[in-house]
């Protein structure tokens, strides 16, 4: 290999004293000292999460407390890393939500696999799964990070609903639906 010898220039007096550099550095320090801080004292302080943030996928209930997921399994189908597993179940006849027919018996998301792509939220025909603002997921074992239905509803909580489509279906059936 060819080598090139670079000539090293001698330092001048100002450089040798380091003083201009120290002064320059202190200028920046003092300028920032009086500005408001840009960092957060995490975890005591929490950041503001924007509305469209894609955090942990969660299951949500409607304001009447009905679980919105109907176990159609489309999110399971679309999930690129195959992190979701749904066991569809039936809703008991005597339940007030019996007209919805189905709900998940179990719903699991492997958070070690989830890539936060949001396809599950996008594909959901029932607006039941949302990537909300939780961004910190940790646990002491792998098993702990397979979120089950209970955990997912705990994280998801209740979101407003602009449709109430199943209630509309029930009302329609009660009002006009006595064809037979």
């Amino acid at each position, binding site marked *: 290999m060819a080598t090139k010898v670079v000539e090293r220039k001698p330092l001048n007096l100002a450089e040798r004293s380091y003083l201009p550099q120290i002064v320059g550095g202190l200028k920046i320090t003092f300028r920032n000292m009086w500005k408001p801080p840009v960092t957060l004292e995490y975890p005591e302080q929490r950041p503001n999460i924007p509305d469209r943030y894609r955090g942990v996928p969660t299951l949500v209930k409607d304001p009447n407390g009905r679980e919105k997921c*109907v*176990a*159609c*399994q*489309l999110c*399971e*189908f*679309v*999930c690129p*890393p*195959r*992190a*979701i*597993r749904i066991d*569809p*179940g*039936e809703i008991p006849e005597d339940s007030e939500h019996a007209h*919805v*027919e*189905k709900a998940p018996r179990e719903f*699991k998301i*492997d958070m*070690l*696999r989830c890539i936060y792509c949001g396809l599950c939220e996008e594909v959901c*025909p*029932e607006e039941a799964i949302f990537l909300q603002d939780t961004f910190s997921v940790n646990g002491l*074992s*792998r*098993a*702990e*990070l*397979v979120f089950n239905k209970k955990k997912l509803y705990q994280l998801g909580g209740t979101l407003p609903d602009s449709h109430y489509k199943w209630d509309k*279906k029930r009302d*329609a*059936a009660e009002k*006009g*639906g*006595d*064809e*037979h």
Partner: protein
Amino acid sequence: MATITIDGQSYEADPSANLLQAALTLGFDLPYFCWHPALGSVGACRQCAVRQYRDEEDTTGQIVMACMVPVADGLRCSIVEPEAAEFRAEVIEWLMSNHPHDCPVCDEGGECHLQDMTVMTGHCKRRFRFPKRTFRNQYLGPFINHEMNRCIQCYRCVRFYGDYAGGSDLVAMAAHNHVYFGRHEEGILENEFSGNLVEICPTGVFTDKTLKHHYSRKWDMVSSPSVCSHCAVGCNTIASTRYGSVRRILNRYHHDINGYFLCDRGRFGYTFTDAADRLRRPLLHPDRERDVETVAEPAEAMKRIREIFSEATGVAGIGSPRASLESNYALRNLVGSGRFSSGLPRIEHDATTALLEAMRNAPDGPGSLRDAERADAVLILGEDPNNTAPRLALALRQSVRNEPIRADAGSRIPRWHDRAIRDFVQDRKGPLFIAWPASTRLDDLAAGTHRAAPDEIARLGFAVAHAIDPQSPAVTDLDDSASDLASRIARALKEADRPMVVSGTALRSPAIIAAAAATVHALRRTGSGGSSFLAVAPEANTIGDAMLEGAPLETLEQQLESGEVDTLVILENDIYRRLPAPATDRIISKARRIIALDSIATATTNRADVVLPAGSFAESDGTFVNHEGRAQRFFQPLPPAGDVLEAWRWIGRIAAETGTSKQNEWDRLDRVLTALARDCPELAPARDAAPDAAFRANGQRFPRAPRRFSGRTSILSHLSVHEPKPPEDSDSPLSFTMEGHSGQPPAALVSHYWSPGWNSSQALNKFQSEVAGPARGGDPGARLIPGNGPNERPSTAIPAPVPDDDQTLLAVPCYEVFGSDELSARAPAVAERIPKPYVALAPTDAEHHGLDSGDSLNLLIGELRVSAPVRLDPKLPPGLCGIPAGMPGWSVPHLPARASVVT
């Protein structure tokens, strides 16, 4: 063949088909709803619209329904013509004005014909903005779920249920926008073919309720080609699984057997594979008399078996008509053919042997269900097909239309033109004669019935043979009504183009079978070329078991008594169902040691020293020989989990362990089949029932999982982050994953019906050589019994008339579609449909004994005491009583027998 022009291209098409059928056969995607290949056309749904042109000059043409246009030479039409395409899209839009958008909760979602057709027509925006009409749903029993809002009024359900299957309790009600398909009131759908509504309905009105309890989407189910294990017809099925359990059974098309339909026993009986009494671990019973069992490791069980074998003076094997051919053969090979029993008592063994003899002796070999469907005169001798071979009853129901259609004008109506044919036929029925002791559900079709004791039924059969051909021996002392009937039957059979005699082992009478055979040969001698003999057997592999020529159970009892044998290996057989309990107890107590293999816990396995868990149809590969002697391979949809192994593999391990064969000699299905072919030349074609394990297409296996499989979820990754290695399959060319050949496999290996744009089971059209024709590349299975030509072998002597006996009743077995089959009776949904135990009695006999319907009747049959409520059957002749065979927990084996009433 006719030349037709579709969109400017010329094609050859079958002139006996309609344009829709021809277009589908040619590979066009033309949407349809009301047409069904088995039900024909009615032109009701207006979905298959195309533009038809008069000739080459005609550029205007007219919109016609393809399903109502017969294929003719020079036919010109266009499918892509914009107005026709718009017409089809608008029909969908109109159907969608009432169809709920509830695909997410609909069980049909992902395999819905309506979804497919909607996408196919391109409809995507509904303009209708008003409330949809809604209905109240009905409870229709444990099999079918009802969701009427989804209905698109194609009428297929009532056309199948009423017109095709003869059910009367599902009808169309109301009119206009309010048409409702259901029962007059909530209740169980009575017809035993109601399960087909699941596949007939193009959308989610009728769905599989058993699937709903453990639902999975079609794209997530791992399936394999299977054969129904609940009767001897051997309907081809697709068994679908998810996460280690069977989720549902679908029909797998076989041109000669089940066609498009299954019976409810076959479709819903599968949940026995998941029942609580499934055996999954080896069990040891240290003391057979006491109910103590310990779960053992396989090695421990094998060690115990080695000890048992080393102590034994002689080992005998009891085979089973519900175990696969391979398992039975492996057992015969383990114990030697001299000590192998077919697992049947003498009374059933003799009847089965006679049936096999009659099948071998039949001129063209035993007939198939398709032969039955095409027959134009049928004599049923001593069988009750609705209960013993249900799918056959459905075929026979179609046969009664053949003779009226053949007459004059009917022959000019195309067969696909369903409405015209039904209008023409009206209520006329072709000749169908039934000889059976009690009433049957085919009685409404019968031109004549003969209700009598088994021997009298045989005498009728021989009388028919004599009336056809005087060369056959005459029957003496036949009463007038029977001899009149015999001559009517003989005339009808002689006049027919395709006469058929159906007979079997239901009444355990070799004489009846001989009479049926004599009739077929008499027909053949007198010139009817198309005559056929259709054999009915009780269990999935009765014929295969009989072809291995084991001895009856009684012979085994003698061997035990003489001390020649002291150890038994019992293969998938509950002897308590075969022999009366005291006789079974004698056999069990005489055997010093018993090794039992079974998939389910039975009274027999409870008394074995060692129990090995055998795979059910869902965990096994094997072959069943069906009622027509057709060997059919079934493949496991599930890799055996835990300690479960195929019975033949267990027996192979026992053989290796005890030194009767070399290690690994029996560890592959193909090796067992090769040995079988070497030892039993008659069974050698069974090897060709399906491609062997080395078969590949382009070097690839055939996937069990569909291409859209989403299923390898990572949910076990907390145990290991590595994707578990997919199970390997050394016995078949199928893989357990979605990887593999993406084209169509040979018909014997079809695991699911799917084709681009066709997600429902209607994709089947793409798997046939022509619509409703044989499967592409030929239908699966290998026929083992070729037939004997016109040479009749001498038959059994004609039985004497049954003497009058005031003191006793003749107890004959009768059958229940839900209950008489051992395995399906353990499925919860089927169990709901099993009737309570009963004894059927003629009203005169009941009166004689001072009994009324529902009163308890005590009978003494041999050494067995039977007690059950009386059920009056006005059709039953006096002197007979009917006892349901094989009912769970209430099995009365060894009939027919004399029974005395105990007060």
